[in-house]
């Protein structure tokens, strides 16, 4: 049976699923409810000098009938007095001693850092998370991602924190920077025990095209917000991977960004995260989603024979190479399973208009099953991605699996295209129709003009 217990730089929790510092961790009431539901830890809504918020505060990206595939907010840190939060932290820790309670903090001066760290440690916090990631409102005040974007300042502040902190310190990173490993390395250099990432991405989530104002609208006006939710997971995964692979980072990672189900969590762990944090999914569906997440990851681990999280943490990292080290001899082409095909011809139009004109339609209008023109197919995957039927288009290996040649090796051997009309151009012998053929092509009956 899978053992989900985790230890992130000394912060222990019954499972790797933590609530991220956000509205779901605004109060002791919510956190108790979450622990009772099965969550392993919680990063308290960022504490500091309480703020005043605006209304409204959130915007959403909906994709067709799916709501909140992306989510943005213009909220600040906690608006509740510190003493109320401290009292509730103690109460939660008393009732749930095995669960991880981490205090997220954002203040300005060295004195403020020292004082608030003592307060939260006295209240019973198991760890501290430094919020250098808030991309709006706080940075204008010299806090949040303003600090996160300046590795030197970040390192200094982590230093101040480590002067007094007795519990482990996690530095939360902002993604609003071109190289995430720079603040990650600065955190390490400042003495941080772990990092967590990503915080929200600066964003405008949409514009009200009748009122000419971006969302969310505050009295006819708006401001940029922080983007999160399922849409940001790919960015988060890449940043987690960058930090996990960088030899100078080398401290544990808590992965954040678009986690919604057990599979998302497994992906973060495979890229090196020890724990994951969740915000948007809980804001959307409530604490109950843990009831899907826990049995999901347990089944996965049992099936794979992983006893602990450590057994598969970072397991995908060795397979992530630089592009120039990938095998150029590996060759796949698309293959359509005719018995599954429903005849939507999305693959045809995708390849025809968006790729390599490697899919043909039958001359018999009653036969709507397309065929792959093997010699034109470059193996890009596009058709298999647009096909609405599970496992209908598969990518089949065509090379003999005996050869291996990378761009790096070709470069070393001087065997790469160097001039604009080089004979070594990869697409030189690919069939491309003549431009004029586009206009001669038969169009669907209903196309006008």
């Amino acid at each position, binding site marked *: 049976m899978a053992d989900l217990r985790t230890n992130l730089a000394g912060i222990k929790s019954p499972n790797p699923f933590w609530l991220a510092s956000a509205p779901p961790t605004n109060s002791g009431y919510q956190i108790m409810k979450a622990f009772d539901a099965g969550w392993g830890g919680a990063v308290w809504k960022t504490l500091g000098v309480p703020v005043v918020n605006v209304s409204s505060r959130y915007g959403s990206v909906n994709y067709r009938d799916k709501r909140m595939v992306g989510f943005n907010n213009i909220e600040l840190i906690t608006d509740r007095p510190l003493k109320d939060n401290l009292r509730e932290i103690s109460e939660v820790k008393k009732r749930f001693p095995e669960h991880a309670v981490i205090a997220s903090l954002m203040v300005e001066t060295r004195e403020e850092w020292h004082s608030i760290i003592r307060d939260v440690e006295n209240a019973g916090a198991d760890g501290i998370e430094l919020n250098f990631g808030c991309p709006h409102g706080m940075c204008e005040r010299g806090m949040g991602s303003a600090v996160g974007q300046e590795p030197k300042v970040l390192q200094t502040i982590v230093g101040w924190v480590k002067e007094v902190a007795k519990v482990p310190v996690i530095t939360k990173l902002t993604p609003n920077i071109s190289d995430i490993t720079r603040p990650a390395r600065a955190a390490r250099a400042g003495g941080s025990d772990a990092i967590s990432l990503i915080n929200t991405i600066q964003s405008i989530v949409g514009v009200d095209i009748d009122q000419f104002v971006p969302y969310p609208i505050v009295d006819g006006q708006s401001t940029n917000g922080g983007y999160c939710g399922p849409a940001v997971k790919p960015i988060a995964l890449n940043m987690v991977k960058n930090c996990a692979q960088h030899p100078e980072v080398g401290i544990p990672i808590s992965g954040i960004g678009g986690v919604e189900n057990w599979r998302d969590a497994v992906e973060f762990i495979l890229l090196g995260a020890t724990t994951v944090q969740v915000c948007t999914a809980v804001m959307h569906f409530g604490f109950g989603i843990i009831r899907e997440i826990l049995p999901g990851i347990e089944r996965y681990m049992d099936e794979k024979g992983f006893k602990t999280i450590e057994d598969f943490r970072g397991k995908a990292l060795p397979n992530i190479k630089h592009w120039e080290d990938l095998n150029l001899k590996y060759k796949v082409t698309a293959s359509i399973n005719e018995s599954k095909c429903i005849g939507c011809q999305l693959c045809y*139009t995708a390849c025809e208009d968006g790729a390599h004109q490697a899919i043909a339609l039958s001359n018999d209008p009653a036969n709507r099953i397309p065929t792959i023109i093997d010699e034109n197919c470059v193996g890009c995957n596009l058709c298999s991605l647009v096909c609405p039927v599970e496992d209908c288009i598969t990518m089949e290996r065509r090379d003999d699996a005996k050869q291996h040649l990378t761009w790096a090796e070709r470069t070393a051997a001087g065997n790469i295209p160097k001039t604009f009309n080089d004979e070594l151009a990869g697409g030189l012998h690919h069939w491309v129709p003549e431009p004029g053929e586009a206009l001669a092509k038969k169009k669907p009956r209903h196309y006008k003009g």
Partner: protein
Amino acid sequence: MAEYKRPSTEAEFAANFSPKKPLMSDTEAYYESSRCLYCYDAPCINACPTGIDIPTFIRQINNDNKDGAAKTIYESNWFGHACGNVCPTEELCEGACVYNNSDVKPIEIGRLQAHATDKVIRSKKKLFITGKPTGKKVAVIGAGPAGVSCACELRMLGHSVDIFEARAKASGLCVHGVAPYKLTNEEAVDEIAYLQEQFGFNIHYNKPVNGRAELDKLEKDYDAIFIGIGLGATSALGIPGENKKGVMGALEFVEVLRNKHQATAVGNAVIVLGGGNTAMDAASESCRMGAESVIIAYRRGPEEMGAYSFEFDLAKKSGSKALFNVTPVEIMGNGSVTGVKFIRNKTAYGKIEAIPGSEFVEPCDMVLLGTGQGKQVELLEQISGVKLDQKGRILDNRGRIVVNEHYQTSNPKYFAAGDAVNGGVEVVNAAAEAKKAAHGIDQYLKK
């Protein structure tokens, strides 16, 4: 049996005849439109007789452009709203949806279509600008789907149009034929009003065109004439007792029902003779009117019925029973009908043969003849009578007008489409044909 209580108030009638395809809410339309795959050269389009660009209008609904969706629909089909409700979509667009190939429910195209068109009808949003006036005048006989569709298209082409309609309401069988759980009178009439407002054709109600004199006048006053008169009354069966009290044509029954609702007289035991869609409708409707027993009697087996299987299913679900391989030989009763005498059939080499001595009487107090509509030969003969001599224009022996691909009759001034030409199919066919006929007229007028 009686799954339906006999309705005595308008509310009870409405409950028994609640819409088969209720209007979608905005949320439902949003979810359903999200499912459409936006197929390439989509088979649903090719299955629509009017060729509506279905994936485009569904995408327009999904992207919050319902005016645009309605415009896409109307561009191909001037009876967009009626069709969304009454089309046998299972056999047409929805039957061709690729989802059928994956055991996923096909997209509810008809309901999405009705949703988008309902919005513009209710907001009275003008979507089209009529063509530059050509000075040509066209007379249209009949304000059914064919006549009105032809009128709209002619107005787009700049010709002025007068429609002469025998009845007091426009939209033909949409108001007096189609089952009330598919389309209400208000919905049918509102769409015509919406179209008329935009296209400015005139409808002269209660103006049947009958005699030769009237045709002469039309020929004199108009540059072309379109015939959209549909079919005639229910054909007689030709068996003894057919004019007993309680025997009526299914079509005539539906027309009364559409107008009188719960006040329509319906027997306790109804026998519907026939295996077509009209027979199925009449059976479903009799059940909904609270008849104790409804029996559909058909000469051959279930596979050979002309009706769509979903219409037969609906009749059964409404409470009808069916008798197959029986031929009615006499309608029994003394003044009023008391039963139908049948003889059983067997089928040999595709031909039905009566089984001697197998007669039996099925008791009932109402008989509805779903035996098909006759052709309007009387009027058509009036036209042909004159023209036959000079121009050699002909009617075939079934009374249908023979037309060329522009829906032009052998008398070049006369065009025709819809049931009068195709012998009775669906609203959507009338709309598709009449649109082509309008272009035929346009070409004729340009010569």
